[in-house]
């Protein structure tokens, strides 16, 4: 028992309510998981990058829903605003900016062969990763004790911020320098060149 678990009295009614909660959350999980996998498959199968980007947005939004199910409230908002909002709109902006016609797309003749061959190569690795995940302690339990969600401000802005600025201050500063360098690099690379250079 830790401080993030809500203190619930284990009466019969509460237990039944908890079981219902868990069932509802499981259904929600399976719906969102199916959506995200479908979006990812669409991303790697669509020929035009615009369609791929649109189906990738579906994946990102359903991943945000999964973060909410894992009671990471701040990450839910950040995923929606930064990933599905900012990064994807940047990508879609560039795709539309380049005005890609169907004739500009590269011919991908052996796509099916590459897909099947890649799947054959990747499948044992996926099985191996699954075995590892299964063997980790605690991964096969139902979450928590009769509660799917963790309350008491777990994953809230204030708590995550406290952890970020207490324990992760140096990585935070390094990230800020990285963003600055990326900004300067993008301006230098994509900016207008002087004639004769």
């Amino acid at each position, binding site marked *: 028992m830790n401080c993030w678990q809500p203190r619930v009295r284990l009466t019969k009614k509460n237990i039944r309510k908890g079981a219902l909660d868990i069932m509802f959350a499981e259904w929600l999980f399976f719906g969102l998981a199916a959506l995200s996998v479908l979006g990812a498959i669409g991303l790697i199968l669509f020929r035009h990058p615009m369609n791929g980007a649109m189906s990738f947005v579906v994946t990102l939004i359903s991943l945000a829903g999964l973060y909410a199910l894992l009671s990471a409230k701040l990450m839910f908002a950040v995923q929606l605003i930064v990933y599905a909002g900012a*990064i994807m709109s940047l990508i879609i902006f560039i795709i539309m900016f380049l005005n890609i016609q169907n004739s*500009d797309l590269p011919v991908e003749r052996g796509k099916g062969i590459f897909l099947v061959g890649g799947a054959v190569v990747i*499948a044992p690795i996926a099985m191996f990763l699954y075995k590892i995940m299964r063997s980790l302690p605690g991964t096969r339990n139902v979450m928590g004790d009769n509660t799917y969600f963790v309350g008491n401000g777990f994953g809230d802005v204030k708590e995550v911020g406290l952890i970020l600025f207490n324990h992760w201050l140096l990585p935070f500063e390094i990230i800020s320098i990285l963003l600055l360098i990326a900004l300067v690099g993008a301006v230098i690379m994509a900016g207008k060149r002087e004639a004769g250079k």
Partner: protein
Amino acid sequence: MILNYLTLSIILFCLGILGVISRRNVFTVFMSIELMLNAANLAFITFSRLHVSMDGQVLAMMVIAVAAAEASLALAVVILLHKHKGVLDTNIFSLLKG
């Protein structure tokens, strides 16, 4: 169940690898890399839920920041490529060989 989330993360990661190795469109390859980053994020947040500590969420936030930096640089490279060569084929990157 924690294991379901981890399995979903593995599936998404493998789909990302498939996209990188089977497609030749620069944008699709780039978005597949973003998909792999997202799968790693899902695993981070799942582990943070498993151990009921929020360090995993902080790490996922840093991954998002790195993805944003990567997006800006990669899109600058793609714009340069399109301006100079007029194609969106990853094979054209082979002229970077010294």
